[in-house]
């Protein structure tokens, strides 16, 4: 079953690539419209240093934005769980920040941080995108603690801090991990969209590489950058899914594999 799950999609992927190669050659499709896979591979090798540098630039900002979103999202959720006033005051603004398209805020952010620090603008824009799922997921999780367990803690004179640390945070963990999976992908999307809107400054990231190659009709490079982006997205997802399994498999229902 498991090997089948691997073989079938891989076989389909290979078949599509072979058909693509064949059709492009057979119909003589120009390479600035749709380059053949072999050409993309050759370009990937040729442009390897440039692509890797761009990957590193993008990935660095993605990782930073995600870490920032994680820390600030959890901190915000903890604050909300402790202070109803804070939640009433800040939550609507978090929602407004979330529903405003990043592309629309990008010029403003770039203006504010200055054109010398475009990287910071990217970081802020990606953070805006990645922050909200963590905040709302963790907030929900912190509120989902079993009422009877809360009573039990109170019966034994537990402090707010003990209830937070020993009860609310563990309850929120599955919610947080799920939010991280969404937010991890969003940080990547956020950085790319921000690059489209703001450029990358001195270092070129993958998003800007795509725009640039498009302008110069280097479609093969564009495809190579796209392929790298997909791989990054998949890697982020699997990494976070692995983390989720690691932390939950012993106790959480979602991670149960029932013996039959």
């Amino acid at each position: 079953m498991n090997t089948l799950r691997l073989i079938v999609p891989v076989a389909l992927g290979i078949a599509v690539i072979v058909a693509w190669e064949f059709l492009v050659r057979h119909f003589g499709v120009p390479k600035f419209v749709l380059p053949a896979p072999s050409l993309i591979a050759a370009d990937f090798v040729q442009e390897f240093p440039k692509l890797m540098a761009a990957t590193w630039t993008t990935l660095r900002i993605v990782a930073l934005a995600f870490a920032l979103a994680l820390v600030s999202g959890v901190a915000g959720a903890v604050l909300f769980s402790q202070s109803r006033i804070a939640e009433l005051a800040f939550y609507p603004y978090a929602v407004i920040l979330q529903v405003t398209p990043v592309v629309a805020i990008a010029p403003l952010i770039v203006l504010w941080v200055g054109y010398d620090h475009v990287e910071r603008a990217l970081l802020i824009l990606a953070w805006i995108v990645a922050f909200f799922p963590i905040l709302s997921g963790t907030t929900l999780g912190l509120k989902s603690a079993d009422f009877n367990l809360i009573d039990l803690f109170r019966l034994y004179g537990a402090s707010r801090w003990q209830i937070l640390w020993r009860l609310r945070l563990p309850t929120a963990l599955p919610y947080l991990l799920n939010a991280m999976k969404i937010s991890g992908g969003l940080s990547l999307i956020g950085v790319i969209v921000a690059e489209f809107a703001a450029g990358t400054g001195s270092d070129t990231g993958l998003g800007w590489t795509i725009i640039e190659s498009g302008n110069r009709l280097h479609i093969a490079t564009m495809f190579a950058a796209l392929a790298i982006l997909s791989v990054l997205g998949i890697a982020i997802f699997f990494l976070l899914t692995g983390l989720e399994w690691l932390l939950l498999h012993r106790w959480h229902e979602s991670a149960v594999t029932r013996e039959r």
Partner: protein
Amino acid sequence: MDHKRPILQLSHIGKTFEGGLKAIADLSLGIGEGEFVSLLGPSGCGKSTVLRMVAGLLQPTAGIVEWPGGRPELGFVFQEPTLMPWADALANVRLPLQLEHVRRDEADARAAQALARVGLAGFERAYPRALSGGMKMRVSIARAVAANPKLLLMDEPFAALDELTRQALNDDLLKLWAEDGLTVIFVTHSVFESTYLSSRIVVLTPRPGAIGADIAMPPPHGRDRGYRLSPEFADNARKVSDALRAAMERRP
């Protein structure tokens, strides 16, 4: 019948919830050390409300809760096992001790001992997910007795279990009661369970909850299957059943 020192005194307790629902009205009840008291009544008559007021989880809107000998260490068992799913059996039982800042190694030892007392030695590392309903309830009881309470409050703890498991747990509970010299307040709506377990049965009338009958039972030492099948048990159960019926008919 017995002249035990009073441990708890409820005087003219009333509870009106926000929204105006009068759950309990003018309820007075004294409980002596070492008693096994069942609170018996139909669903919705305020049994849980009384228990939560005794535990201090809910404030009465009238009357006072007094502890003549000082507030003792309490244990609480809910209808559901109410375990932390992320913690194994040992960590669940250890919780009250940790909240009271008992040293970790001592807490571990006491928690392991409590698990052994409810027949779960060897299951220290098992997560709730891997335990049956009866075993989870045993963990819950172990957690309640781990901190050496003097007064054990139980809110229909065995209502969700099958009859055999329930009887086994009834016997285990009586053993703990006798060994530890516990005082127990046991909420149930089962005539038979309360007859089997109690030294005293307090019947509550519904809406608003007040005391309908206060029946003394023979002390529940050394009860076993034989008692369940004895004519004496049948007589006692009938007495309780009649009192419950009378209490329900007295509703306004």
